[in-house]
């Protein structure tokens, strides 16, 4: 029998509330924080469902590293200071019927087949522990596991290549270092001319 109903309903309410909060929030940082809370509640549900390893992976990988990456990028770009764009009038007109169709299809499938969900397997306490997951991962699923390693390697190389601005020669790197002293990202090249020579000397000294 998976789950205490009370805990489930509290967690479900929090999960849906934070998901809605993420969607309607105008500040991107608030959206990210709502999503972190959402991931945490889902992790509690994983614990109830007998998946402690997945629950802790959810906390460390999703709420930990992925959302921290999101917050880094939000703060790096300064998105919250951008002006809000005008809204597109036809966007909800197209989106809402599509979502209604999706909800209809989901409900038909859900309520049409809910009777097949009655048989819940009995599991041992060892179900979903890191030992069992690791054993299965390294025996039956070793090839997908190694493929994942390759995917992560490609992702690391790709993101470094993408985010690298340009190939700086050693001289350029020093000039960039000088120019970034005024620390206005957009006006780097133009502002470096306005800095007096004495100040530039100081910056090099530092």
């Amino acid at each position, binding site marked *: 029998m*998976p*789950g205490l*109903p009370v805990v*489930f309903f509290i967690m*479900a309410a929090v*999960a*849906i509330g934070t*998901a809605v909060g*993420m*969607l309607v929030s105008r500040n*991107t940082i608030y*959206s*990210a924080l709502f*999503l972190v809370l*959402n991931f945490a509640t*889902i992790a509690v*549900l*994983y614990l109830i*469902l007998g*998946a402690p390893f*997945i629950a802790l*992976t959810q906390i460390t*990988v*999703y709420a930990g590293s*992925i959302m921290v990456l*999101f917050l880094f*990028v*939000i703060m*790096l*770009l300064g*998105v919250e200071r951008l002006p809000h*764009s005008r809204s597109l009038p036809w*966007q909800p007109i*197209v*989106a809402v019927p*599509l*979502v209604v169709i*999706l909800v209809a299809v*989901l409900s038909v499938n*859900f309520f049409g087949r*809910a009777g097949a*969900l009655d*048989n*819940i*397997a009995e599991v041992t306490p060892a*179900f*979903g522990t890191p030992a069992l*997951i690791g054993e*299965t*991962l390294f025996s039956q*699923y070793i090839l997908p596991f190694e493929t*994942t390693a390759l*995917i*992560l390697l490609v*992702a*690391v190389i790709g*993101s*470094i290549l*993408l*985010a690298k601005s340009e190939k700086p020669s050693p001289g350029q790197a020093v000039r960039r270092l000088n120019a970034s002293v005024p620390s206005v990202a957009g006006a780097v090249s133009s502002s470096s001319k306005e800095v007096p020579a004495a100040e530039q000397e100081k910056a090099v000294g530092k």
Partner: protein
Amino acid sequence: MTPVAYYLALSAVLFVLGILGVLLRRNALVIFMSLELMFNASNLAFVTFARMFGGVTGQIIVFFVMTVAAAEVAIGLALMVVIFRQRHSIDMDELNSMKG
């Protein structure tokens, strides 16, 4: 309704909310977060079915989904940084330079 049905219903609701976010918002970062929400909804369904059938394969799939999502986020956010550097906007409506 059985407890399994509750979990699947929650998964469906979260997935629909993610779809709404992708369709209605135009901030690329929020669209990305909605994608993560949809990943989570499907992961919840996988874990629910793993518990229902008593097999561990569903949890293994969730593990793979998480690692691929991490790779996808790294690439996607790098792309977003590059786009923002060039156009000073991450509004999806403004990224129309390939429009004929």
